[in-house]
């Protein structure tokens, strides 16, 4: 299978020369194949957020290369970087990051208007995806008028509407109650299985991670152990994770 994402010997050091420096990532290597659902798990300070910032082109690695869909991110200029983000990457954030001054429909339309898609095509595309995510009834409401779970599904719709090469999810259930979190994870899982949406989720929560097919553990700026779900059921995979975490490895 082709690799959608390839991270090659990536390091990230903060602080200027001659000052006290801090190395957040110490040579990270991994890849994500098309149609995969990968979770990156780690505690606070393990380098999760740094890694996600680099993957989402919001920050640049000190050394090493990141390729998304064959494109080396380090070769992109600021303008190209913005275009690349708007075309190839979809984001879901912990706190939804919806614009509260736009309706849900308008929020979802944003990535398409940014790409200059014909105005006639935008609404049908939104309606089609809203059907899949079960948010059609709330499209014309403002984010403030819907529940947290619905907000996150709107955010998912906004992340997927332009068919990105990869969906990056940063603690997508962090701000949701357990029922909404479950619904959201089921939706992400379904999108991955049915529509083959390549997904990379960063989380510290084993329950969320258990929905992925493969889990990479990050600790002190390095990718350590890797766990594959294989043919196991999700609950079994979850138990395995808990057991793994319990050993403190």
């Amino acid at each position: 299978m082709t690799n959608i994402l390839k991270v090659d010997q990536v390091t990230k050091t903060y602080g200027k020369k001659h000052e006290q420096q801090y190395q957040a990532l110490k040579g990270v290597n991994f890849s994500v194949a098309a149609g995969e659902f990968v979770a990156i798990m780690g505690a606070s300070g393990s380098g999760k957020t740094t890694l996600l910032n680099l993957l989402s082109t919001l920050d640049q690695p000190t050394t090493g290369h990141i390729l998304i869909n064959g494109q080396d991110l380090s070769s992109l200029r600021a303008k190209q970087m913005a275009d690349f983000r708007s075309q190839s990457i979809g984001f879901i954030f912990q706190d939804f990051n919806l614009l509260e001054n736009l309706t849900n429909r308008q929020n979802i339309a944003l990535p398409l208007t940014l790409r200059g898609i014909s105005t006639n095509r935008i609404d049908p595309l939104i309606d089609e995806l809203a059907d899949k995510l079960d948010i059609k009834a709330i499209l014309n409401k403002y984010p403030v008028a819907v529940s947290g779970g619905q907000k996150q599904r709107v955010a998912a719709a906004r992340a997927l509407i332009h068919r990105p090469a990869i969906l990056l999810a940063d603690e997508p259930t962090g701000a949701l109650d357990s029922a909404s979190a479950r619904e959201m994870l089921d939706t992400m899982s379904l999108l991955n299985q049915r529509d083959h949406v390549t997904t990379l989720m960063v989380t510290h929560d084993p329950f969320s991670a258990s929905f992925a097919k493969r889990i990479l553990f990050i600790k002190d700026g390095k990718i350590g152990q890797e766990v594959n779900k294989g043919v196991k059921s999700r609950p079994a995979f979850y138990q395995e994770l808990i057991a793994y975490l319990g050993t403190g490895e």
Partner: protein
Amino acid sequence: MLLQLALTGLKRRFKDYLVLFSGLIVASMVFYMFLALAVNPSFYRHNITIGAAYLSFIFGFGIVILSIITFIYLIYANSFLLSMRQHDYGMFLILGAKRGRISLLVILETVITGLLATCSGIILGLGFTGLVGKLLIGQLDLEIHHFQAFVPQAVLWTFVFFLVVFCLSALWNVQKLFRSRLLELLQEKQKPVKINQHPLWQIFEAIIGLVLLAIAYAAMNSLGSLLFISFFVGFFGVLLGSYFLFHSFFSVLITALLKRRSFAYRRLRLFTLGQLKFRLPAYTRILTMTSVLFALALGAITVGGRFHSMQREFSKSSYYAMLVTQHEPATKHQLAKLHAPVMPIYHYKVTPKGRYLNRAEFRRQPLRGIRFQPQNSQYHDSQYHAYTYPLREVTRLSGQPGYLLNQLVHSTGTTKMLSSSRYRRIRGKERWLQLIHVPDLVKDYQTIKQLAKLEAKAQPASKDLLTLFGLTNYQAGLGLTSGFQFMGLFLGIAFLTMLASTLMFKVLSAASDDRLRYRMLIKIGTREQLLKRSIHVELASLFILPAVLGMVDVLVGLNMFKSLITRPWQGIWLPFLLFAMLYAGYYVLTVKLYERSVLN
């Protein structure tokens, strides 16, 4: 511990405090500048020769308007101060501070911030008043007396007014704090944006706004029949009408644009319109104030400028600006400085029987006069036409040049105009005089003034005669209009300063909340160029809407000055252009500061 926390809070939001502080300073500075003129009666007693009663009313009314505007501004600034500190106060409560202690802290913070800003504002106001006054008087050659930058009553009243408002605000902040629950204080930032009211109600409000504006404009048009009532109806009608218009009319318009998908679904238009839709109702008070201040500033500058152009008319009312009867080196030096002058020299002889002129000289260089032709139109100046004075009229006493010559020659008996040969035969001492005409007296004003001084020194006897020339007419005009012109421009500049700071303050105080939205847009791949364009359009709308309304207010409001100035709309493009340039400068500054705040 509390002090340390308070200082940390201040450091964290230093930029916001800077915005708040500079806003308050400008408010007190402008308030002082206005009072420096308004409570200095000797200023307008000495400088305003017409309509003094009218003027004291205008100033009284001006103080009321400025107090209302400043009051709203301060209330807004204080709620901004409280919103910045709210979270910290909540933290203090969690740490175990008693509400009474926090209240004391709130009062102290509010009043100290206020007093510091007021004192700095008054000091700056003193400097700015002196500077603007000096510049205006110097640059425009105004005949202004009893103008002073330091007016003790103005200092006192500014101080008292601001102190009272800050004390009231402090009490208001305390009671708001007492009413709020701890969680509300801590989560103030997370409060969702309010969704607009019902569309039908919005349309109703929009109509009310338009009707109120129409009533206000009608009242301003009827100053003659309604007298001072038209000021009140005009002002409050404009104030409320603008309020409703901003609160609803523009929101209705933006909603309609958002519904037009073919328009809204392009690049970042959705976001820009969304920002504006939510901004306008929240900005209602500030936009209303801005449009009123815009009208006041532009109106003051226009009226001031109109007085200035009336001075030009005075400069055209005589053909000859000055005369000289000697060519001493200093006089020659000044004459050489004049721009394209016409300077005929006439010789004459005086005998006990009378005075004699050489006809040939008058044929060669005819005497000229000015004919005044009033215009009926409101839009054009009266015309001053130069014409050649008929030769036979020269020696008559009634005509202007004839009268002039008779006076100059200052002898009794008849004046005769002779042929060159007869003139040569007359025995008597020959003298000469040189009349000076310049195409633009205003341009050569300083030189002509010098010439008049030199002439009066060289010929003390003819000192009174010098008053018969254009220079004196022009100086009389200056005296008549300088006071109004000075006040108009001075207050215009003061209002413009406040206007810009008000809008800038509001925009920048919202920047920290807006930063999140722009960060989010950057994350989903919006080019910086697009974000900047969106900011430009959004802020331009916030600047242009009150400006357009303010301009309409001015155009209609100028009706009220018809009794003071002729054709108030004439040449209006000049102050409008100057004002537009200054205003555009403020817009660019605000955009740059805002961009730095939200995009970096």
